[in-house]
């Protein structure tokens, strides 16, 4: 089961996922989508950690993954609260609305 999955493959996968998340982050205007892209990036980072930990057979990778999870949770909570506020204030969740012209 714990087979010979080369670390480099897993890292490459993490890299691709991270890049996709980055693209999504930069391209999308909808705040919810931006937050989701951030989650993708965080997840990719976690994957990298776990892969590295599995390479050396240490629990440290998973420990780091756990902390990343905690961070992601806290960040999502606050981010969605911000989305709520924005919805109430502007009626829309377009990120460009946060610019100064609209008094953001």
């Amino acid at each position, binding site marked *: 089961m714990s087979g010979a999955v080369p670390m480099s493959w897993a890292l490459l996968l993490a890299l*691709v996922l991270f890049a*996709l998340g980055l693209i999504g982050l930069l391209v999308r205007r909808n705040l919810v989508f931006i937050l989701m892209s951030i989650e993708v990036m965080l997840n990719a980072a976690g994957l990298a950690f*776990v892969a590295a930990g599995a390479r050396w057979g240490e629990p440290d990778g998973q420990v780091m993954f*756990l902390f990343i999870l905690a961070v992601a949770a806290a960040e999502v909570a606050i981010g969605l*609260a911000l989305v709520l506020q924005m919805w109430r204030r502007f009626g829309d969740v377009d990120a460009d609305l946060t610019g100064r012209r609209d008094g953001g």
Partner: protein
Amino acid sequence: MLIAFAVAATVAVAATALMVSSRHPVHALLDLILSLLAVAVIFYLLGAPLAAALEVIVYAGAIMVLFLFVVMLLDLGRVAEEAQAALEPRALRVPVLLAAVLIAEVMSLLVQAPSGAGGRQVGAAAVGGALFGPYLIAVELAALLLLAGLVAAVHVGRREDAGDTRGSGS
């Protein structure tokens, strides 16, 4: 083993790509959940069953559900569709460029570094032992972080009532 990995990896990448380009938030969320599940499979294949379980329970199960709640609460479905109609291919140039650079950077590292394969499984007991051992302080800090996140989310998400003049108007 490797085949399973390849399949799961493909699923993850495809699902993520779909998510990024999706128009409908709910569809995107489902795609994201699919991607997370694929990654969980990969975790298991790497010999990290605890991470796989946590991925499913916490990430896909709690965080994504939270997203779903908010999307449905605010009924963002219709709004998002209209906004994304304005998305042009031109906007993709710079992000794709950045991503490509990033991939190139890391790949150059990967090529140099030895890529051994693991062999053993690292189970929950080992992780638990590490958490209560060397990483104890980090655990406490993570707890504090969650608390802070909780408080901040409550505050930021509050309703602006007529009589509520305290705090910075956000």
